[in-house]
């Protein structure tokens, strides 16, 4: 038991590490430059008028985010690429340099071209249209297009330093160098290390949209989702347990037949459809049945009594909780019925019957304990399902919780928020599964965990 728990606990950080790698990787490949979100509006305006000052501001902002560091603890890369490429902070320029080096294989000449290009693009003596096209060239990352643009420049403006440097680079190509890979260690001064360290200390950075700390936003949303899901969980078990147990106890009765069919259909009804229908019919005036408020979370006015708070909340939360709960309660009662049916065949139940105990005493006093063990693991599967379900339910009923926050920030590419939410969900999911498995083993000492005997958990 203890060994199993320890083994599961070692998985937890490993899974979270992998999840953080996925998030970090996603963050790296997403289009959009995070440094831009850090710069004040005024300095973005100087980009056109005074590129040198802008460059300096940009560099400082990038350094504060750690963007002048290598991405990871080590790198495996083409030997033609220099080990200092990460110091070029502008992502567009870095991509261009990378592509050129991987085409021509000769870093010193590529660097010479890049220096010439930068020097001449900042040169105030050049005519405006030329320096504008030079600056465009700086953001170009396709070698073929660069070739074409340089050719066009030569045609228009005659021999420039830049054209010579480009020709030099093409002539001095050493493509054989591309065939060698290198491996390099970077130590802890890298982007991932800093990012992960900040997250471990609870600092998720600033939201791109609101420019406020992510953790505050999530904290507010989390409270609402936690309340919603907590009530839902309570409702699920309050309804599902008696339903499944009595269906098994009175097997074959009309109640059992109808509830089995009903629960099966209920389980198959997509909750977002039901939620859409309920929201359309009962929260809008379209059918004259707007009995429930359509928006928000129901914050009772300050200083009102407990009863007002409860009734306001109940009015707002009734439909969302219903929609969130019914798939799970159908799921739980179906499982409970099945496992209780297995128990009913056993000798101790026959004994209890022969003793003359009433059925409900048998069910609650004897069968329930034994039949409920598998239900504990279901908790592990329900937990992530509830979190995912909240996205839709919160969207449909406009509850500003974690699901809605996730949706809104994913749509708006507000990466710091999305990543914080994915990680948080990962932690909650993993933790829920762990607690459910351990709870199962604790409640039923017969369960053998460990070698291959991982109890079934999850949605199947």
């Amino acid at each position, binding site marked *: 038991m203890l060994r199993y728990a320890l083994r599961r606990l070692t*998985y*937890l950080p*490993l*899974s*979270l590490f*992998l*999840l953080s790698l*996925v998030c970090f990787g*996603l963050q790296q490949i*997403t289009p959009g430059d995070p440094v831009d979100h850090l710069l004040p509006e005024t300095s973005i305006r100087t980009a056109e008028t005074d590129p040198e000052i802008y460059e300096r501001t940009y560099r400082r902002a990038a350094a504060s985010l750690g963007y002048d560091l290598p991405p990871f603890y080590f790198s*495996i*890369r*083409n*030997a*033609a690429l220099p080990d200092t490429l990460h110091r070029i902070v502008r992502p567009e320029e870095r991509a261009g340099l990378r592509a050129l080096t*991987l*085409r021509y294989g000769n870093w010193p000449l590529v660097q010479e071209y890049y220096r010439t290009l930068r020097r001449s693009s900042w040169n105030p003596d050049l005519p405006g249209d030329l320096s504008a096209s030079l600056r465009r060239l700086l953001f170009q990352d396709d070698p073929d297009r660069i070739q074409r643009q340089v050719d066009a420049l030569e045609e228009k403006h005659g021999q420039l330093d830049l054209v010579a440097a480009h020709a030099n680079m093409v002539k001095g190509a050493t*493509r054989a160098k*591309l*065939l*060698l*890979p290198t491996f390099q260690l970077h130590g802890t001064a890298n982007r991932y290390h800093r990012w992960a360290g900040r997250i471990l200390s609870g600092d998720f950075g600033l939201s791109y949209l609101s420019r406020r700390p992510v953790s505050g936003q999530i904290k507010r949303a989390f409270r609402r989702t936690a309340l919603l899901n907590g009530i839902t969980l309570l409702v699920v078990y309050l309804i599902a347990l008696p339903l499944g147990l009595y269906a098994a106890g009175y097997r074959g009765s009309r109640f059992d037949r109808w509830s089995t069919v009903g629960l*099966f259909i209920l*389980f*198959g009804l*997509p909750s*977002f*459809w*039901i939620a*859409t*229908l309920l*929201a*359309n019919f009962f929260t*809008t005036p*379209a*059918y004259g049945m707007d009995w429930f408020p359509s928006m928000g979370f129901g914050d009772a006015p300050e200083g009102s009594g407990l009863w007002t708070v409860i009734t306001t909340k109940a009015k707002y939360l009734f439909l969302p909780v219903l929609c969130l709960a019914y798939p799970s309660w159908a799921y739980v009662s179906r499982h409970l019925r099945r496992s209780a049916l297995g128990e009913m065949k056993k000798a101790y139940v026959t004994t209890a019957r022969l003793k003359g105990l009433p059925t409900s005493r048998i069910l609650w006093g004897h069968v329930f304990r034994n039949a409920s063990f598998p239900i504990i693991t279901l908790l592990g599967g329900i937990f*992530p399902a509830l*979190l*995912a379900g909240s*996205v*839709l339910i919160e969207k449909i009923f406009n509850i500003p919780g974690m699901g809605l926050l*996730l*949706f809104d920030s*994913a*749509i708006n*590419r507000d990466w710091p928020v*999305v*990543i914080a*939410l*994915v990680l948080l*969900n*990962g932690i*909650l999911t*993993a933790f829920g*599964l762990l607690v459910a498995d351990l709870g199962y083993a604790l409640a039923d000492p017969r369960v053998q965990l460990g070698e*291959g005997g*991982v109890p079934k*958990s999850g*949605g*199947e």
Partner: protein
Amino acid sequence: MIGRRTQSKKLAIGWLLFLGILALVGDFLANDRPLIAIMEGETRFPVLHEYGEALGLVDPYAPVVRNWYRASPDWALWPPIPYTAGKSDLKNGGYISPFGKQNTGDRARHYLGTDDLGKDVLAGLIHGSRVAVLVGFGSTLLSLLLGIPLGSIAGFFGNGGLRAPRYYWWGWIVGGGCGMLYALVSLRPYFNYPGFLVSFFLCVAAIVVGGWALQALLKLIPRLRKPTALPADSMVLQGIELFVNIPGLVLLIALVAVINEPSISVVILVIGVLRWPSVARYLRAELLRIRHLPYIEGAKVSGIPAWRILFRHALPNAIGPLLIVASFGLGAAILLESFLSFLGVGIPADQVTWGSLLKQSRDHPAAWWMAVFPGLMLTLTVLSCNLLADPD
């Protein structure tokens, strides 16, 4: 009781078949071109012609016909629903109910109503079933492709069944990994970043060469010649465990929202990859049971090679449970697809799906037909899949 069960399973299979046929022949059922038309003394097959154009076999008709109604052919056989999904009919715009007054002239009614731009809801439903079938079957196939090999190796061979000298395992795993990295880091730029297929073959070739070379090299070290077993079961179980801890749906939303151009194939890919653990886990459990059955023991004793036993004798016996997990996965994938298009992420905005119709109904709650019918299709499909997957 048993009779009723098989009957309802038959109904479920019937519905899924119906859905598949609907997806296949949808263009002939709902289309704003005629099936056959006689125009300018020439018999034309506009719907079929469309396929020919898409395949590059035929050229478009000489004066391009944009609107076959306005072109008024001499005689035409129209599909039963003469509207294409997603095409607006402005004369009938503004959410017209199936029973409302419709301004269609001699053209057929919008049987299930329209949306704000007069797009036909029934045509949208048919197109939606095509997307649902595509995503459902595609991602289920992918999850089976990933889950069957891993699950069957884990379950059939267990931790002790795959035995080979140490140099073999180390050589192939480390060498193959290095080969793949080399292909990605060096070979692709050297060959000027070829397309996906060439890159794929480059990778495979590098894996084979790297793995073979390293294991040939390691063979020279005597200590590595000792045979050991590959702990296949533990490896697959750990993989499953890692995947289970990842909040699939949340990650899915994050993933699909990042991708610049939403496309159906990305959705298929992501759903398929997220769902392989359930296939692998189920198949593993099934093969754990099967491999201890007497007939497998007998086959082992009579000296039939293990791989042959797995493919010829053990796996065919596990097809029943596989079908169960596949049909459950089908329902889940279709549900996920509607979920994503309801949220408006992942599926391209110009594709009409059940989810996108439901989403539209949120903008105009009074249009009950846009909420009820797509939901019914979805519910029937999910119920059928669940019914097929129900063990008792």
